[in-house]
Each structure stands twice: as structure tokens, then as C-alpha cells.
């Protein structure tokens, strides 16, 4: 590592370097989950795989949606659709902090010039019934990642404990690339034949989805879909484990969990539409959490989620 690392030139180069780095550290480089989620944690590779005793190591980009954060593409930092980079390793290795700092070096953050700090941050996901302790990581006063040792997920104690790293990719990349507005950030190499900025790709969709999230989405339909997802989740989990057709024991933990993810996103949309009151909010979060817990219970009964 004595050679100075060349500064990355684009958003995608930062992602590629993280992929290569964590791949080289032995993580399975997975692809994003193919559903709308609020954060990389929702990917079953994190939520479900952090349960049970089987070792696990994965890294992936997860497109994430936070409908209330829509700003019509005008805010320099805020987006309703953005990318998280997620690393999850079970059991958490003793040198996870060093590994993490290595990843920063890899994308051009030199610890001899920058001020890198681990600042207390207790992580809790009320919708997933999950919590952990760790830090937010500051680089020159800016939060660039979250670092969490999972203690509980879906109401289950994590044994062993998973270490989870979450990088807010846009914010991190803007800092590394020295860009002031996310829409001006080079997505591919600026010297490419067809250079594309983040704005070229996402400005229009940010406008469209902001309007959709705040005014367009039909709330009656969303309420109905929430109920449907909730019912389907419970129904899938109520099946007898023994599958008569294949003759195998098949618990549908993942399909049920998909419905939990759906319910969670529908709730976020309803929240953005401003039709959920403060008191109702808690009740909805509780309903999603109940689903997440049931899915976790079910996953623990499967091979992947069992104790070895």
C-alpha cells in the first residue's frame, strides 16, 4: 500500500473499486435485490443471512428508495432513489475496522490527510425488529458510512454477530470526486466518448418520482396493497413445511419476506403521501415488524438459517 492510490474519476469507478476490494477480502459479490427497498439492510443477504450460525460474507450495491426524500432533483445531496454499498460478514472479523479503513484507502481517502473518526451510533430498525451497536464514520466531519455489529434481527439474537458496513455511495463519491451537486457528478469516466453525469441519468427520474411520491400515487390502492402484502406474508408462512408435490420440506421464508419488503415500501410511500398520522405511523411500523419477525422465525427453521 506504499504506492499512492490514483484518485478515482467517476461514480462507477468508486463502486468498481469497492467491489474489487471486498471481493479480494473474500466476500461474495452479490447483485442488488430485485425489489424496492429502503436500505441495503433489507436485502435478504443481510436480514435473513445474519440469522443462524452459518458463516457468511457478502458485498453488494443496493439501489434504495426513500420516497419522502424526493427533492425533484434540485437538492445537492438528497435523493429519493440512491445507492448504498453494503458489506456483511458473519462472524464479524476482529480486524473489520482495519478492513473498512483499507476500503477507504482504495477509493482515494488517505488517512494521513483526512480526519477519520468513529462516532457512536446505535443502529435500530423498528420495522425489522433489529438493532446493533457501532458508529457512523466521519471523514473530515462528514458521515461517509455506518458500521454496525448486529445484536438482534427479527427479534432473534445474532449468534454469532455479523459486522455490517453501509456506505452512502453518492455522498462518499461526491466527497472523493470533489463535486458539490450530486447531479453534476460524473457517472462514467468524464473522458469517455459519451460522458454521462449522475444528472444525465437520474435528474428526470427524480422529478418524476418526486411528483409520484408526494402527489401521484393512489393512496387507496397503496393501503389495499399493504393489506394484501401483509395477508400474503402470513398465508405463505402458514403452509405446512412438507411440500406434497416435491416431497421436500420447504418453508417459504424468502417469498414471505418479499411481502414484508413490499409492505415496508408501501408504508414508506403512504408516509410520503402524508396520509399516515403520527399515531398510526407507530401502528404500521409495528405491523411490518410483526411480519419481519415471523419471517425471521421461519428462516431459522430452514437449512440456511439453522444453527450448525
Amino acid at each position, binding site marked *: 500500500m506504499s504506492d499512492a492510490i490514483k484518485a478515482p474519476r467517476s461514480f462507477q469507478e468508486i463502486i468498481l473499486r469497492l467491489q474489487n476490494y471486498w471481493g479480494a477480502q473474500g466476500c461474495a459479490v452479490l447483485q442488488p435485490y430485485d425489489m424496492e427497498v429502503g436500505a441495503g439492510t433489507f436485502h435478504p443477504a443481510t436480514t435473513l443471512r445474519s440469522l443462524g450460525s452459518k458463516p457468511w460474507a457478502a458485498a453488494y450495491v443496493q439501489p434504495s428508495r426513500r420516497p419522502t426524500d424526493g427533492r425533484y432533483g434540485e437538492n445537492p445531496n438528497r435523493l429519493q432513489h440512491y445507492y448504498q454499498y453494503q458489506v456483511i460478514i458473519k462472524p464479524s472479523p476482529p480486524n473489520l475496522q482495519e478492513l473498512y479503513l483499507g476500503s477507504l484507502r482504495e477509493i482515494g481517502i488517505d488517512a494521513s*490527510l483526512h*480526519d477519520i473518526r468513529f462516532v*457512536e451510533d446505535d443502529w435500530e430498525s423498528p420495522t425489522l425488529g433489529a438493532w446493533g451497536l457501532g458508529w457512523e464514520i466521519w471523514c473530515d466531519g462528514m458521515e461517509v458510512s455506518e458500521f454496525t455489529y448486529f445484536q438482534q434481527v427479527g427479534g432473534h439474537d445474532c449468534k454469532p454477530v455479523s459486522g455490517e458496513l453501509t456506505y452512502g455511495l453518492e455522498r462518499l463519491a461526491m466527497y472523493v470526486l470533489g463535486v458539490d451537486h450530486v447531479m453534476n457528478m460524473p457517472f462514467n469516466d468524464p473522458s469517455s466518448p459519451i460522458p454521462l453525469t449522475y444528472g444525465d441519468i437520474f435528474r428526470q427520474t427524480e422529478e418524476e418520482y418526486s411528483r409520484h411520491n408526494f402527489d401521484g400515487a393512489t393512496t387507496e390502492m397503496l393501503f389495499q396493497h399493504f393489506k394484501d402484502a401483509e395477508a400474503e406474508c402470513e398465508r405463505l408462512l402458514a403452509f405446512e413445511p412438507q411440500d406434497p408435490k416435491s416431497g421436500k420440506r420447504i418453508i417459504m421464508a424468502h417469498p414471505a419476506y418479499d411481502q414484508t419488503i413490499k409492505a415496508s415500501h408501501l408504508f414508506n410511500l403512504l408516509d410520503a403521501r402524508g396520509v399516515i*398520522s403520527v399515531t398510526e405511523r407507530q401502528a404500521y411500523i409495528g405491523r411490518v415488524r410483526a411480519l419481519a419477525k415471523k419471517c425471521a422465525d421461519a428462516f431459522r427453521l430452514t437449512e440456511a438459517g439453522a444453527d450448525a
Partner: protein
Amino acid sequence: MPDLLIELFSEEIPARMQARAREDLKSLVTNGLVDAGLTYASAGVFSTPRRLTLTIEGLTAESRPVREERKGPAATAPAAAIEGFLRSTGLRLDQLERRADKKGETLYAVVEKPGRAAPQIIAEVLEAVIRNFPWPKSMRWGAGSLKWVRPLHSILCLLTDETGSTVVPMTVEGIETTNTTEGHRFLSPGRFAVTGFDDYATKLKRAHVVLDSAEREAAIWQGAQNLAFAAGMEVVEDKGLLAEVAGLVEWPVPLMGRIAEDFLHLPPEVLQTSMKEHQKFFSVKNPKTGRIEGFVTVANTQPADHGATILKGNQKVLTARLSDARFFYDNDLRVARGGMGEWLDGLKSVTFHNKLGSQADRIARIAALAREIAPLVGADADLAEQAANLAKADLRSSMVGEFPELQGLMGMYYARAAGLPEAVALAARDHYSPLGPSDAVPTDPVSVAVALADKIDTLTGFWAIDEKPTGSKDPFALRRAALGVIRLVLGNGVRSNLTTGPFRKAADLVGAREGGFADVNELCAFLYDRLKVFLKDQGIRHDVIDACLAMPGNDDLTLLVNRATALAAFLKTEDGPNLLQGYKRANTILTQAEQKDGVEYSFGADIKFAETDEERALFKALDAAEGAITPAMTAEDFPAAMAAMAQLRTPIDAFFNAVQVNADSEIIRRNRLNLLHRIRAICSGVADLTKIEG
């Protein structure tokens, strides 16, 4: 005498937990060592983000030998008893001592416990302390089951004496003790060995770690002041922030930056809150303009470029944050100048509580109540109503959405921007107060009216829907609201009968809307409970309060407390407890006679039946006391009434010494009972003295 050095080296310990952890480490280890028979001369404890360090000087090398003696059964006791004694002592019969005494011979077990070497004791104590350390929140990591605040990486445990230093051997969950530690994560990576505390502290400093948080605090404060001074500015003191920042760095390097001109018009509290909450910056004030114009950030490194990159990065983050804040503020000012209608409309769709309606419903109740309360506190009713209607408008402002802790304060700025009367602006800021026992009580009449209305509405509302505090659960902070009412009333000398006045009105307002009425009397009982706690802290006993609560008009808290204060003071005088005894004696005799005779002796005693001088003197004293007490009570001058009552002490004592109440003559007996009745009537007009203990 050896010295002991312990360092628990971990991943970053939250800053806010370090001070407590230092104290816990010191007391738990030293108590453990002392309990095991060691003594020590002195102990010091330190923390950085990555370590807790304890140094103990002058530790004894081994514990004192202990001789324990236990008396057993008689030598002639049944075999089962002797066997039981042997089991419990772990000795054989031939190891017991036999001693002759009155009963014959008794068995004794004498166990000599030799002194134990310090290392053995230290290892046991340290392991127990690590396994049971009282972190506010702790965690597991990896595949282990040990809990620590964050993963624990190494344990240094070293005993040093004239002959050199040795590691105290022990292992906790696979972590073996060593004589090594690490320096600064970035500036001096790698482990090194130490020989004792002085060597440890010196080498750490060479490895870019300032061990003592007080030294780091001093360095940060001094460095920050120097930077500010050089620029003709001054750092705004913030002790809490200083302690926190000192807990975030091992090698503090303060750096100062300027806030861009575009943001200097923001209220100083906004700048301070944003910089402190989000970035842990100190605010720097320009004494010439009185504005916050700069900041100091504290880096945890000695960067190659003297901090240019770090400062640039921090400045950038600050600019992004303050751009948000300015956007919110400018936007809010536009809404405020337009009359805040947008916010007030918005509050209609914000649920306060599903059984108590929206925030707008709540505000309407508070406004109606503030109107009612206004005359009681000397406020203009229209102004109080207007202030109540607007006091919570800022809850919908963008700035309060971002920084909830600025609620009220932003309301004040926005009310001023809207050109509203200053009393309305102050009420917006102050109506949440007092928030705690030490928070100042508002004194501006309009603020007092709105603050009272706010709290009384909360109390009656949650009472009406049966969300009362139980045990340790008080999710709607009703105890705090009750204390707020008490402090507002007493602090401003408000005179009002709460049950028939404000609380009744509030219950009606809630009831009219929500169909559930609060039981005002029960609610006041809750208020009295809080009052007792409050007055207890002021040194007024609960029985004194009970004696005053039993009096009519007790729901006028100011009157009640004036009475209680006077009574408490009276009971502290020499006359107080003596008069109380006399009163109680009179009351007991009278009550027994009344029960026996089935009559009330309230016919009025006649001095012509008095037989002794003492009796006649009591007649005169009672006349005099009555003459003084009646006008004093009318004027609510309790100290004067108590003083007059005190005058009765000597004549009452003399009366009881000289006179037999239950005289043979029925006429004289009745007359004396009627006389006792006068004592009771006069005294119980001041307070119900039967409630006083003792």
C-alpha cells in the same frame, strides 16, 4: 510495594460513556482488591476513545493471612449434627478444636487462610470486573459471548516493583494479558511494550495519544481560544461539548474556519445548534458584531498539510448543512410574514393524540383556556388568546422539523418577523417552560397564561382518556406537566381555585370535544402528590402539607403553600411542638367526652364558671388569640396567625397543669370542655393540626 497498571484496549468507546466508565473501573477494581485483602496507596484512572486505563500505586504484594473461627455443636451432640458441621467446614473431626466451657466441651473449627499473592487476586478481580462491567449498553462481537461496549482487543495488566515488571497472567475469552498497547490509530500504528505507568504515559504521548481527558480538554480549549484570539474573536464556552469532543480524539488538533457571509443572518441559536449537533463544532463569536461568525473543529490527527484538507472538508459539510438551514429559515420567514396561516392549517392534519384530536384542536383548547387564565395572572385576555393560537405554529416550520430542540425559540423569531406583539413572541418561546425542576419559570403575564393553559390542557386531556402515569411509566410526561403548573403558580403568586377555575374549564373543553371528562378532583390529588414531592425538596414535611390540605380552599396552591410554609416555620420554633402537644391533648379529651356524651361542646364557655387563675388566664388568652387570628386569617397573614397561636402555648400548658377537666361538678366539667372546644376551633381555623405527626 508494587504498582499496578491496567489498560483495557477496545474499538472506539462512545464519548458520552467514558467519564462514568472511568469511575466504574476505578471503584470496581479497587473495591475488589480491598475486599480480597489487599490495600493500596492511591489510584488514578484515564480514558481515550480506545482505552480505559487504571493505575494503582503502593499495592500490597499479598493479602493478609486470615484466621477464621467457627463455633460448632457440643462434643456430645448427636452424630448428625457433628457431621453437618464437618460438611459445612470441610474439615475432619480430628482437625477440630475442643474447648471446655460451662456445658462441657464444644467443638470449634479454626481455619487459617494464608495470605494470597497479589497477581492471583488481581486476575480474579479483573476478570470479574470485565465480565460484569456496567456499561449503559454493551454488545457481543464475532463468535464470542463476552460483552463490552465495543469489541475488546487487548488487556494490559502489569505489576511493577523495584525488581522490574511482570505481566499478571490471565485470559478472558481468548484475550491474554500482555505488557503491550497501541498508539494513535493513524499517526503511530503498531504495538509497543511498557514497563510501568510512567513509561506507558510517556510512550503513549510519543505515539500521539494524550492519555488524560482533562489534559485533552485543556489543550482543545487553549488551542481553540488561541486560534480565535489571533483572529480577534472569542470561542463560545460549551463544557458539555468540550467533554464530548475530548472523548472523540486521542491527539486533538483544533482548526478554525469561518462561516460564509451568506449564513450570518441566521439566528445564533440556529448556527450553534446546527454546528454542535451535526458536527460537534465550537461556535466562534465576533465581539465587534456580537454574531457567530466562525467555528472550531477538533481533528484527531496531525495532518501532513496542516489541516487544509480537513478544514476544507469540514467547511464543505458545514456549508451544505447551513444551506439547508438558510433554505428552511428563509422559507419559514416567508410563511411567518404571511401570518403563519400555512402552518396553522397544517396543524389540523397533525394528530396530537388519536383520542385528543389534532394539534389544531389542542391549540384551540389552549387558547380558550389561556383566555380564562389571563385575568388571574394579570394578562390581557385577547393577547393571551392570540399568543396561545400562535405559540405552536412553529411546529410546522421547516427549521423545527430539522431541529426539534429549537421549538418555541424559532416561534419567537417568526412572531417577531410577522410583526406580532413582543408578548406573543415571548410566549412562543417560553410557554413550554419550565421543562425541568431547574428550568426558569416564565414571568411575563402572557407567557404565564399560555404556559399554564398548555400544561393544564395536557393534564386534563390525558386524564380524560385515562392515560395516567403508573409507576415508572409516564409516557406523556404528566408529572413534569404537573410540576410545571405548580412552579408557574407558585413562582408567579397566582391566586386561583384550580378545581373550580382552570381545571374545570379545561375538563369542559376536553369533554366537549372528546366526550370524556377528566375527574378534576382526582387530577388535583395527583397535583397535590407532585406538590408534596416539590415541597419536600424545599424542606417542608408531608404531614405539614396534609395539615394544610385539609383546610378549605386548598386548591389555591399559593394560599396552600403560604400556609404550609408558615406552619413549617412555626413547628420549628420552641412554641410549635409544645402548642401542638397542648392542642392534641385538648382535642383528645374533648373528642372522648363528645363521643361519650353524644354532644358537641360548642356552646361557648363562660368565664364565670372558671375556678382557677390558670383557667381564667386561658379565657383571656383565647380571647386575645381569637382577636389576632381572625383578622390575620382574613388577610391570609399566616405567620401572624401562627404567632398569635403561639401565644396560647403557655396558658394551655398552665391550664392542663392546674386543672382537672373532668371535674366532679358537671357544670364545671361542661364549661371546661366548651373551653377546650375554643382551643380546637381557634387552632383548626389555622391548619388541621391533628395531621401533624409527633
